């Protein structure tokens, strides 16, 4: 099959990529911000097979050969090849937009922010990042004696200095200020949107038509991003209103509240519980709100996906997150001190196993039977890699492989995955993407989770019990 396959980004680069392709007269009417379709037709190249992915998935999809070409930020390309230098990826062209830089960020607190001071430390240096491979490589290059890397789904900037020592953060010029006196202590690298190709396809197939069209359109085709003039400057906003960070007293109870989809139901519950929130939700994007009148609790707003590991590592005592994410965590770390405390009954969803409607199977058993006659293993895509792994094992899926995804997972079926483990609220998305449910794993709601060791801390224990009591009454009413 000689159809050229292209992976396009959703999210940050979407509108500019759409503008570029529009200028090249590709006629991709379904590629716009807020589109509900993950498959895009192209009037100019009717044979072009195009799908929309989360940016982070694109280098992987191109490297594995599922796609010939892809457009994504160079940051995600680097994140892949720093760990897997043999990836079959070729960086073809800088596209001239989507500039940003990855910074190592720490606290501005006298000498403590200096790299040398961090390097000299004998205890564990905690790094957080959406780019765990780059963070590890950064730590190795600094020759840190002892470090831990916590991969994050987002909100890395709110972790230092109390929940992490260093954060590796992507920032776009002018768009981000690091609050609470955080400052850039090293620029890891600058990046922009780029066109990448699968090496084998590049060497063996004619992709020239598509490339020529982009070549003619991208104005500054040859201008490199690594030109120092165009590189974003480190953002050190000394005049930030937040001022320097005031250390959190050691024995306060540290609570994590969710951003994103779970936020509104969490806000409603806190209100029902009679807790007066200061700046949650925050129109300005403040991630350190407070409960009025409760000084013994300190709050941070982070991604629900990141909470179980953060609670387990002792960076938080309590968190409000979906039980799906706690389960995923416990499949990876069975003895983890992160534990379920209270079902808050927030935002119920079902965790389901999905296949394409075209497959003649109606349950896991039939899927397995169908695949037992095929040469290749079942490809299981999921944001919940550990739940998916456990599901595949428990259902004796044989030679399966897990494909971690970062959202837009429905797009993977049927070409790039065979089975999807995903959450669903109403089932509408499933129908729209021509998928069907073959199994329901469990129902997930928002829970209060906590660190088992914090529950036995004499200072924290009464505060935690009080919060559990308040929330329990709110749930029951």
């Amino acid at each position, binding site marked *: 099959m000689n159809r050229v396959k292209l992976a396009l980004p959703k999210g940050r680069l979407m509108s500019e990529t759409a503008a570029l392709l529009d200028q090249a007269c590709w006629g991709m009417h379904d590629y716009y911000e807020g589109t509900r379709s993950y498959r895009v037709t192209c009037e100019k190249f009717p044979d072009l097979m195009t799908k929309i992915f989360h940016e982070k998935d694109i280098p992987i999809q191109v490297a594995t050969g599922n796609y010939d070409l892809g457009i994504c930020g160079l940051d995600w390309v680097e994140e892949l090849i720093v760990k897997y230098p043999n990836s079959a990826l070729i960086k073809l062209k800088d596209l001239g937009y989507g500039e940003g830089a990855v910074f190592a960020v720490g606290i501005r607190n006298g000498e403590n922010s200096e790299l040398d001071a961090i390097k000299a430390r004998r205890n564990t240096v905690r790094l957080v990042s959406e780019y765990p491979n780059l963070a590890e490589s950064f730590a190795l290059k600094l020759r840190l004696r002892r470090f831990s890397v*916590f991969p994050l789904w987002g909100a890395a900037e709110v972790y230092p200095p109390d929940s992490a020592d260093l954060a590796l953060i992507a920032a776009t010029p002018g768009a981000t200020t690091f609050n609470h006196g955080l400052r850039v202590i090293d620029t890891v690298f600058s990046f922009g949107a780029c066109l990448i190709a699968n090496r084998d396809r590049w060497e063996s197939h004619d992709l020239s038509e598509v490339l020529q069209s982009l070549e003619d359109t991208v104005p500054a085709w040859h201008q490199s991003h690594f030109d120092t003039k165009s590189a974003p400057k480190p953002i050190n906003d000394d005049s930030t209103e937040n001022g320097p960070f005031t250390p959190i007293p050691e024995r306060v109870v540290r609570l994590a509240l969710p951003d994103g989809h779970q936020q509104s139901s969490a806000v409603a519950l806190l209100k029902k519980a009679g807790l007066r929130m200061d700046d949650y939700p925050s129109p300005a994007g403040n991630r350190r709100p407070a409960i009025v009148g409760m000084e013994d609790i300190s709050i941070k707003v982070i991604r629900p996906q990141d909470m179980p590991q953060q609670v387990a590592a002792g960076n938080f005592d309590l968190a409000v997150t979906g039980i799906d994410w706690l389960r995923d965590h416990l499949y990876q*770390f069975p003895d983890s001190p992160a534990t379920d405390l209270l079902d808050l009954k927030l935002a119920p969803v079902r965790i389901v196993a999905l296949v394409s409607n075209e497959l003649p199977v109606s349950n896991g058993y039939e899927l397995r039977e169908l695949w037992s006659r095929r040469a*290749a293993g079942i490809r299981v895509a999921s944001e919940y890699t550990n739940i998916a792994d456990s599901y595949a094992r428990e259902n004796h899926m044989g030679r399966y492989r897990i494909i971690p995804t970062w959202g837009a997972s429905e797009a993977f079926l049927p070409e790039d995955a065979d089975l999807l483990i995903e959450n669903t609220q109403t089932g509408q998305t499933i129908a729209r993407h021509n998928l069907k449910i073959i199994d329901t794993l469990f129902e997930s709601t928002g829970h209060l989770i906590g660190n088992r060791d914090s529950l036995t801390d004499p200072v924290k224990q009464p505060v935690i019990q009080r919060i559990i009591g308040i929330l329990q009454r709110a749930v029951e009413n």
Partner: protein
Amino acid sequence: MDNTNAIQKCKGTKDLTPEYMKQFRFIEDTFRDCCRRWGYEEVRTPTLEYLNLFTAAGTLTPGQLGKVYSFLDWDGWSGERVVLRPDGTIPIARYYIESGSEKPARLFYVSNVFRFGTTGTETREIWQCGAELIGAGSVNADAELVFMALEILKSLGLKDISLRLSHAGLIRSILSRLDISQEEKTRLLDRVLDGDIQALVDAKPELARIITPILGAKGKSSGFLKNVLVLLSHDFPELQQTLRDFTDLADTLDNLGVAYEINIVSGRGFEYYTGLIFEFWSGDNSIARGGRYDALISLLGGKNIPASGFAMGIDRVMQFTGDNTARQPTVIGIIVKPLPVTGSLKEAFIAIEALHTAGFAAELALTDSESIKTGTKWLLKTSETGWRFSLNDLNSGDCYEVATISEVITKLKA
């Protein structure tokens, strides 16, 4: 993508076949016997270690650390990674520190180390034999290791063995005089160790008068080191002591008639070493290397304890030892064949047990058509008439009727 459903071994790994294992055991056993005779004791550290053991040691480069097999353990929620041991010496140093002993220790190990190779053709699991002498830190200790290594290599039957000596402290000291970043120093060091002395001269022209005669020459006796000592006495007073040790060692080797070549610039990969480095060659092939690593134990949080050691890769050595299967201890092989009648199998097993106890190799014939493998000397058949055996000499074709198993054994011993 998958193009085959066949089960196969992991990329970069290899099965050690029965033939390979015979060679492997020969090398391992020779190494073990030698070490024990020199008073060394065997230790076996875990395959899993914390990644921070190797980051803390500071002796593996970021590039090497980027190629370790690391992962989060089942209790790795704190982000603490574990690795499949990428090195043999660092775990031994860790063990020594953790044992709490401050006494000198003579330790040896035979273990596998794991390093990712990007081509997929090189083996990612490498078996090593190594010996460490911790806490002695004298010329005598270095000399002991050199002699022990030499004895092992001779016992292995390696031909054309030569010895090259170098000194890590010397290059480090010269590099320390350069006003360049640590990273640039590391890069420069790699170039120098690849033989590019000019790179160093370019970086510090005023040192050319030292660099060329010292790094560009190959010394054949302790006299060379005495010459070097004079050249360095003014600019590098800190090297006087270690160079005197080096000279003493060379003197000892001279007196014992051991030929060597002093080549300060001899090969990469000596991140640990702080002083003497010795490397054994068989013809044009580097076989084993070792040296003094005085800083490692303190880097890992232990006391300031000197140490030396050496290691050799089993796979590497095997390429030059030739076929040693003939050196395996030979035992007389007997194949025991029961008749297809009730009670005969029991009789065969009793016979085999008795033969094993008497020190013979005996195995059961499983099928009629089974070919008798080479090395088997006798065929013992149980008979229909109870405690009766027929013993066939497979070489001569002679056949004996024997009444009891003890008579069989007497016959075999005769």
